């Protein structure tokens, strides 16, 4: 992983001016909102009504349990996990299977496929036709359909990353595998994919975050409460509980907490993705 440290030549004594400035931005603007969210989530409705910017006293842990049960977060959560997992895994698998022959030009029209994907980056995202298609293909308001409709991002993103990455793998590897009598799918699954593991993690996390956090998708393509992922579930909860911000803040925090934990654990992959994006160009 690329270090984000500073160029060796400029290592010098601590710069307190930079410390103060970066610290103010990070703590006030970034830690602040999350801290405030947590504070409101722990306040009683009466305290919030009279003095919303104050330390919660007494600590209302019950807000969390009420938000969890009232908003049926459990259902939303398992839906989110299901959608994210299948969309990510399937889209990347399909992307790899498409990217490999294209990157090697094993099939005629490889160039055309590549250009088609490139052009796709500039084409409009047709939300209206997608909505019509979803109903014609029976993908509207069901779990499988929702997953299918969310393969696009991972497919496109994964395709470009894989085409680039497969090119760095020597062709000799294909040849020796073929000579050993290794079947095609077996070769992809057992040899190539493990080789791209480092980039796979990064791509996978970006795709997963994208699917997990999508709000417009569930607003347009889902109608039943029991099918909603967390984003739409939280948004619905917001609509019906805005008179009670403490409960709502607890709900937002319940949704945010796993994301914050995931961020802390997976940050290096996210950084790697951002860095890769900048260097690739």
């Amino acid at each position, binding site marked *: 992983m690329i270090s984000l440290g500073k160029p060796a030549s400029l290592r010098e004594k601590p710069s307190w001016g930079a410390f103060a400035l970066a610290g103010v931005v990070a703590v006030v603007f970034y830690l602040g909102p999350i801290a405030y969210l947590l504070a409101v989530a722990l306040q009683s409705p009466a305290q919030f009504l009279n003095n919303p*910017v104050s330390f919660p006293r007494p600590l209302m842990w019950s807000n969390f349990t009420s938000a969890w049960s009232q908003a049926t977060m459990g259902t939303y959560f398992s839906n989110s996990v299901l959608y994210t997992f299948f969309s990510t895994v399937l889209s990347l698998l399909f992307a790899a299977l498409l990217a490999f022959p294209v990157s090697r030009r094993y*099939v005629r029209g490889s160039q055309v496929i590549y250009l088609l994907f490139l052009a796709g980056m500039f084409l*409009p995202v047709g939300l*209206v*036709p997608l909505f019509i298609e979803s109903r014609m*293909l029976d993908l509207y308001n069901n779990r499988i359909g929702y997953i299918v409709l969310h393969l696009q991002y991972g*497919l*496109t993103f994964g395709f470009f990353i894989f085409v680039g990455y497969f090119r760095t793998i020597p*062709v000799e590897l294909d040849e020796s595998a073929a000579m050993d009598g290794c079947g095609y799918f077996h070769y992809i699954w057992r040899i190539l994919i493990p080789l791209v593991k480092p980039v796979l993690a990064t791509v996978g996390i970006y795709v997963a975050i994208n699917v997990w956090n999508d709000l417009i998708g569930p607003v347009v393509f889902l109608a039943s409460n029991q099918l909603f992922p967390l984003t739409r579930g939280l948004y619905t909860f917001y609509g019906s509980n805005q008179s009670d911000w403490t409960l709502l803040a607890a709900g937002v925090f319940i949704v945010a907490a796993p994301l914050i934990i995931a961020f802390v654990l997976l940050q290096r992959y996210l950084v790697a993705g951002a860095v890769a994006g900048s260097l690739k*160009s």
Partner: protein
Amino acid sequence: MASLYRGRDRVQLYIGMLPGLLLYVLFGVVPSVATAVISVTNYSGIPGLPVNFIGLQNYVQAFVLDSTGIVGAIRDTLVFAVSVTVVQNVAALGMAHLFTRRYPGRAVFRSLVFMPAALGVTVIGLTWALILNPSGGPAASLLALWGGSSAFLGSNRFALPLVIFVQIWASLGFTTIVYLAGMNTVPGELYEAAKIDGASSWVIFRRITFPMIAPSTTVNVLLAAVGSLNTYDLIYVLTDGLYHTNTLGMYMFNTAFEGSSNLGLAATINMVEFAITLAVALTLQKVLRKREEVL
């Protein structure tokens, strides 16, 4: 080379490509082309109602007969996109510069700024709606210290600037990291030499750092511009396009799914958005690449 995979394996090669290709055509290519087609029809989405080809009538309606909506949306979109692109990049350059200095807590600060990359529009939007709550939220309390008050997201004057602020807040970390990575590729000797020449840190930044990180600038500016021209999910959570935050994307969504049955017009708005994005993306790409080559 293609002889490597013959017979059964070659069939497998094609089978493997099939799902990806099919999905891409079905959900990438078809909807894009269909948007253009729907924009020349009076499609209403009502079951059983006939769909007629009406030529450019939707475009005439949008631009000639009743141009207030589209003109306002284009204005909001441009204000939003230009502000986000410029401010986000300037701020990220500043942040990246701060993160090249050495001091305790640097990694933690960097992580905090980058965190919104994982949070998503619902959490971000609702958290800021809470902060910007005009009756007693922290922003209102702060403003009250100077005797001021505002409706914030419900204000015709401040809603758009606030939406721009939250959008930048959300993507500042990513942009910063990209710049930071670029800054780390600048050879240290260049700085050494400049220092020996007695150059001020502004001159060093202006003459060495900024030109050397041109590829990062290209990526960041392109991503911010194209992204901000198309995004509307955060606006959907914060204002739903009310109070002069009706960007083209929001306008398209509202026309298609909120209180109008004119899906043809919605597709027309989408085409306008697409045309603007394409023009901006191609121009920026040309300008920025040229800049990279010159340097």
